[in-house]
């Protein structure tokens, strides 16, 4: 069963990880964007990451996509700290230096659209760590994220250093499903594939 879909965006696509991607993952992890992030020593370590990505998606704890532009793998889109019941999660895009901000933004947007539609996610968080590219902050603002908190020394860099985390949030306008029995309030219950009509749509009817 596939839990992580392939999604297209202008100029590229995101797709699930497979064991054939170890070279791509190795390349990405040899050029870490996150301050203080260590590099894996052996390629085989990354096979566990592929396995992890499947388990995380299957249990709604996280999701990982490889990000391709013109057939070249240039990064990853990650979902973590996924609180499916609370309709919120945190995202991050890790990219190679050649990944443009335009494609980064488009990939992130495509994944967010999918998560909002499929899992009714309302609350998207994104953590920018002090030392990352400044243009990522601009991208977040362009997408409608707002800076909500600056967590001091919340990211460890090396053995004794720390960096601040800026936490951004975007709340979409999607209406929360109402609690009720199956059929009550036209409630989707556990059928997450069913669309929930918004108040506006109900009024139109």
């Amino acid at each position, binding site marked *: 069963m596939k839990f992580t879909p392939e999604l297209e965006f202008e100029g590229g696509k995101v797709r699930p990880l497979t064991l054939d991607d170890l070279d791509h993952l190795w390349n990405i992890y040899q050029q870490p964007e996150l301050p203080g992030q260590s590099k894996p020593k052996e390629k085989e370590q990354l096979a566990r990451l592929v396995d992890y990505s499947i388990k995380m998606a299957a249990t709604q704890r996280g999701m990982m996509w490889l990000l391709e532009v013109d057939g070249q793998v240039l990064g990853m889109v990650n979902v973590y700290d996924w609180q499916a019941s*609370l309709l*919120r999660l945190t995202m991050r895009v890790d990219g190679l230096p050649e990944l443009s901000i335009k494609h980064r933004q488009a990939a992130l947007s495509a994944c967010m659209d999918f998560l909002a539609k499929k899992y009714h996610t*309302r*609350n998207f*968080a994104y953590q920018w760590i002090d030392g990352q590219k400044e243009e990522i902050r601009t991208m977040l603002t362009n997408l409608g994220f707002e*800076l*909500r*908190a*600056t*967590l*001091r*020394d*919340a*990211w*460890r860099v090396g053995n004794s250093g*720390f960096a601040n985390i800026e*936490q951004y*949030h975007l*709340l979409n306008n999607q209406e929360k499903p109402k609690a009720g029995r199956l059929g009550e309030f036209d409630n989707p219950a556990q059928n997450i594939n069913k669309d929930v009509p918004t108040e506006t749509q109900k009024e139109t009817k």
Partner: protein
Amino acid sequence: MNWNFIAGDYLLRLPVADSDRTILQTLLQVPEVSAHIPRLPMYFEAQVDDEFRQMVQRFDAREAAFWMVENSEDKLVARISIQHINWLQRSAYIQWELSDEIDLDGLSVVVSAIKDFCFKNLGLHRLEMRLRPDFQRHIQLLEALGFEYEGCLPEQLEFQNENIDLAVWSVLAK
């Protein structure tokens, strides 16, 4: 490592499942005690059983620690915990549930001892508290205890049909 210690007139000790049920329920059944978190008051025995199960499991996993805080008359005046301990990032959440019988002076002594324990014995670097932003008593206590406000995260919980924002306050090891 000894997780029980004395701070001024207060004893901080890990809970004992068999003997602490009643006194913990007495504290946590008062709605105001947990309203800032927020959490339902502990009215029923089943809630107490579940709470103890979680406290034990989370401590065994070294993911959290819960202290019963008793005054010189052996009366439980607070429960204070560290949770979501992240050993990699060297951070944890701190949470308190206070009775009216502990004031700022008492809390200063107790929290200072917990900070020392966390920063020196556990090697943590950052303690943060997340709570509802509109609880003035707690905000005043946090300010007085040297915590700094970092912002407010939207819609972190749903509680009693209400979306709950949580303010973040933190204190760092010096």
